[in-house]
């Protein structure tokens, strides 16, 4: 290995906060950093399939601009954002000028948005090079990224296993050192569950904390954009870039963000009450997941936190309510994909050529099975005669879930649970059993129904399969700062125990790629 390769390999493993320091100290250029990540993508993404589109030209141009400003010095260099020149990947559900946006669907293949999402505008304003667009379950509908129309993403810890979903591409890209940062979207766990199964950090902010303008909507009352990173501090840094009020999203919270980076640097949890949710562990959770969860509780207790137990009895109805509300909203949101204004148009093979039949043929050919299932289910839940029993009841359950959270947060400052009931399962295992797939989100869904923020961080490896386990922290709405405070403390305690970041224990993908290449060449 040449010296240059070694330094590139070191660079891609740094956190965004560390990269930012090196960039500002002039120890490395933004072009070097961006090129190192583009090289890494070229080397390993054939195995991982995290990216649907790589944006090399624009990313390098933005990096070169940052380097030029920094080299020139003066006021403009002073004004550069802390993360200027730190590259990022964007989930392909978020629209971008200059790159295709597919939402993982054939119905948008080749489509280019004429506008940027607000979060993308903010990345551009901070001069963060956008490496490309990451893979996802079609329209973010799934928990494994297997419902992408462009093939599944693979888990960097074990390429035969799922990287979680829907944001498997963003989580895998960050876990495989193909990007230091990524954006995800979380409707029922699509940032946190992929974070859990790939050993990365993922945050679903308070509903309204980050603008949804330009995120292709699945369920508007549940969707939230958030950070996907390798450290808690990096999530806080990214949250501050993308968060804050946006007049173009009428559900955007008007108040300014708290100082989340300061919260991540607090460094203590003494006297904080941390609540174990009785209903979100134990039966139905893999033994190795439960063990790592108990380890985390032990560490927090040793650090001076008070561990209490809380009960949220209505969480048992949350999954059911979610699978009525989400498809209902999705069936309405996806009505716009009709072969008229953008995307695919398919003409019926025979019979009269009316617009209705063109829509029917277009949506039949353009949507995958899971999207069709959810549209039909949502249409059912909203139809006359069933509306009160299904959609109406689900909205009442939402009230009950909110009340459970209120009662729990009267007893605890932060709640804690495993992020997902199991570690990453093998590709294909749950593809023919939608209900089994849905159960992956049982611990993440309540936060979306109530609008409260949640963070998942690596909790270690499960004893039985050596795969990452996620620990979920939940806080009251608008109290995202608490997640970063507790998350950063738990992360530092765990890393002290492991002797470094969990991802240092992940398999070496570049070596595996080189080996495959050698074998092929030998043949």
């Amino acid at each position, binding site marked *: 290995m040449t010296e240059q390769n070694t330094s590139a390999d070191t660079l891609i493993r740094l956190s965004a906060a560390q990269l930012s320091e090196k960039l500002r100290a002039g120890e490395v250029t933004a072009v070097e950093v961006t090129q190192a990540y583009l090289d890494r993508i070229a080397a390993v993404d054939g195995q991982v399939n995290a990216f649907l589109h790589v944006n090399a030209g624009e990313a390098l141009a933005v990096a070169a601009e940052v380097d030029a400003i920094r080299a020139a010095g003066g006021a403009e260099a002073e004004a550069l954002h802390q993360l200027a020149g730190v590259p990022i990947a964007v989930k392909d559900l978020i629209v971008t000028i200059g790159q295709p946006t597919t939402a993982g669907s054939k119905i948008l293949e080749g489509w280019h948005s004429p506008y940027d999402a607000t979060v993308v505008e903010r990345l551009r304003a901070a001069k963060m090079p956008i490496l490309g667009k990451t893979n996802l379950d079609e329209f973010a509908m799934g928990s494994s990224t297997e419902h992408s129309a462009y093939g599944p993403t693979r888990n960097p810890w074990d390429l035969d296993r799922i990287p979680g979903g829907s944001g498997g591409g963003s989580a895998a890209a960050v876990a495989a050192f193909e990007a230091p940062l990524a954006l995800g979207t979380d409707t029922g766990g699509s940032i946190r569950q992929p974070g859990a199964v790939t050993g990365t950090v993922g945050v679903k902010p308070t509903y309204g904390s980050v603008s949804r303008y330009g995120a292709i909507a699945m369920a508007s009352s549940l969707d939230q954009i958030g950070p996907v990173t390798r450290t808690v501090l990096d999530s806080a840094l990214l949250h501050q870039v993308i968060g804050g009020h946006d007049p173009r999203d009428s559900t955007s919270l008007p108040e300014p963000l708290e100082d989340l980076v300061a919260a991540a640097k607090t460094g203590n949890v003494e006297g904080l009450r941390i609540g174990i949710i009785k209903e979100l562990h134990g039966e139905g959770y893999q033994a190795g997941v439960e063990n790592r969860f108990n380890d985390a509780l032990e560490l927090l207790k040793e650090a001076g936190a008070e561990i209490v137990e809380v009960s949220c009895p209505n969480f048992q109805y949350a999954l059911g309510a979610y699978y009525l509300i989400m498809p209902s909203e999705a069936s309405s949101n996806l009505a716009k994909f009709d072969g008229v*204004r953008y995307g695919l148009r398919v003409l019926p093979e025979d019979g009269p050529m009316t617009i209705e039949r063109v829509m029917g043929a277009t949506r039949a050919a353009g949507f995958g099975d899971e999207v069709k299932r959810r549209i039909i289910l949502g249409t059912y839940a909203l139809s006359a005669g069933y509306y009160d029993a299904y959609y109406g009841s689900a909205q009442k359950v939402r009230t009950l879930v909110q009340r459970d959270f209120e009662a729990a947060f009267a007893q605890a400052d932060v709640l804690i649970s495993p992020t997902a009931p199991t570690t990453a399962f093998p590709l294909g295992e749950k593809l023919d059993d939608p209900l089994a797939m849905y159960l992956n989100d049982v611990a993440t869904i309540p936060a979306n129904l109530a609008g409260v923020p949640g963070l998942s961080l690596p909790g270690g490896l499960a004893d039985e399969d050596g795969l990452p386990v996620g620990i979920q922290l939940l806080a009251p709405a608008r109290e995202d700062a608490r997640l970063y405070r507790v998350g950063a403390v738990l992360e530092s305690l765990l890393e002290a125990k492991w002797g470094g970041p969990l991802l240092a224990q992940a398999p070496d993908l570049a070596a595996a790629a080189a080996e495959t290449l050698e074998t092929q060449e030998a043949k």
Partner: protein
Amino acid sequence: MAAINRDDVAHLARLAHIEMSAEELDRMAGELAVIVDSVKSVSEAAGDDVPATSHPIPLTNVFRDDVVGHTFTAKQALSGAPDSDENRFKVPAILDEA
């Protein structure tokens, strides 16, 4: 609560503008029956006295200044259209009997 059958799915697919083959209707009816069965407990969870929540964090009176903001040009708006003609989206016949 009523179970969902193949005829229901065919009707819903028409409402949702998704053409489905006979095979697809059979499979979808089976899968949806399982899902609908699993969510039916939701209808018994809450009493009449529980209000519905449609939005997790309600905001009232969200206004913006009454000024013209960004608007797309016709060319931008039509840039992704499958078919267009003279600055308009072009579609096949809207009525059955043209």
